[in-house]
């Protein structure tokens, strides 16, 4: 059983790290939208100018907030996975290389 738990722990550790990459991708998307949509000068300084503020406040900002919510939920799932990795060690004395490295989950 120990070997199977070791394999499971290794892959849960890998997925824990993978979710961080996924979370970072959401940040990339938010940054992309902010740069290319919120900060554009496309609307000029005349009658269309208010659109810039509207799009920033009514589209880009709530979009960023939604992504932030998504990241928070992913973070919660990651925390749970970390607890599992930690518990494997407590229960079976088996832990993956990933969870042995405290540095790997100090990025929270």
């Amino acid at each position, binding site marked *: *059983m120990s070997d*199977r*738990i070791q*394999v*499971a722990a*290794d*892959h*849960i*550790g*890998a*997925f824990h*790290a*993978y*979710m961080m990459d*996924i979370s970072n*991708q*959401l940040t*990339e*998307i938010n940054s*992309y*939208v902010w740069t*290319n*949509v919120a900060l*554009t000068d*496309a*609307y*000029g*300084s*005349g*009658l*269309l*100018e*208010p*659109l810039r503020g*509207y*799009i920033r406040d*009514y*589209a*880009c900002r*709530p*979009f960023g907030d*939604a*992504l932030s*919510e*998504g990241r928070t*939920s992913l973070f*919660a*799932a990651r*925390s*749970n996975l970390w*607890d*599992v*990795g930690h*518990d*494997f060690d*407590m*229960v*079976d004395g088996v832990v*993956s290389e*990933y969870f042995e490295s405290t540095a790997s989950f100090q990025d929270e």
Partner: protein
Amino acid sequence: MVTYTIPTEMSSVLTTPVEGEIELEIDKNDGKFDTLNEAIETVTGFYSDAQSVAGKVGIEFPGPQVQQTSAVELFIEPFSGDWNQIIACGDAVKKAGLGLQTVAENLLLGMGQLFASSGGEWEGETAVSFNLHMGIHVATLQGAGMVVSQGKLIFDGISEVAQFIAGLVVELIDTALDLAVWLIEKIAVYGRPWIGWAKFVADVIQDGWAAIQGIIDAMTSLYDTITAVFDLHDAVKEWVETIPASLAVFEDLIAVFEQIPDLASTPLLTAAAIRNDLEDVGQSSQDVIDARREAEQKAEDAQNRLDELANGIEKPGVSDDIENIEVPEGAEG
């Protein structure tokens, strides 16, 4: 050490937004605006002088009083903007939506790897529950991506309305310029000191206002053109105020993401539960069963809500007030 590699990086999806290729430029340094300014000045001066001369002989000049204004301030500055860049904004939003869908696929592929690469042995209640919980993330990201991609329509609509407005402005400029050139030439006859105004009085006394009816008509058309531009200013201002309502869908996305249950407060996974899975004990705690049901319901709710949001997105169109702006006739002959 086992590592999972992201199958699709964002750099391959979030590429530089593509601008539109609309060729419709209004250059404020174009000499035509000097001509327009000259005409406006000439016509306002003519009106003032004609009114004064007519008053001296006890009659009233029937032409309209054209408001003194700057052609650039009237035609150019209010309509500044770059519709090709607005098209690029739409492309960026579409790519952001594709980005979210790609994140959903990446997450799904990672989950597949987790269960397949661990020997395909992690099966059971906990595995199913964890899969379902992560499935809410996948469904939400996938659906939100679809909604955001659809949001491109809003930017396309804004760009199309901006193009329509620009086309209208170009027509108004052309008409105003046509009238300006004609009026400058005709009014010049009466603009010479003494002789010009003597001719003006003689013509009007001999033939009545019909003698300068062409000038009066052209002045009226110029007045109507300038009035149409001011009306367009008002119509565009009102249209701009309708856009926040079109963007409400982005606000609604927050609520969908907020519905993802907080796994930290209702942990699905424990090492002991996974051990049970691996040992095929098959025990189902009530917590796991409840969490699984909740996950199934949440994923379905999120999917339905996101479908509604995507279907509800409408492209902003040209308002009636903008559409009803009429371009006056140019000068005759």
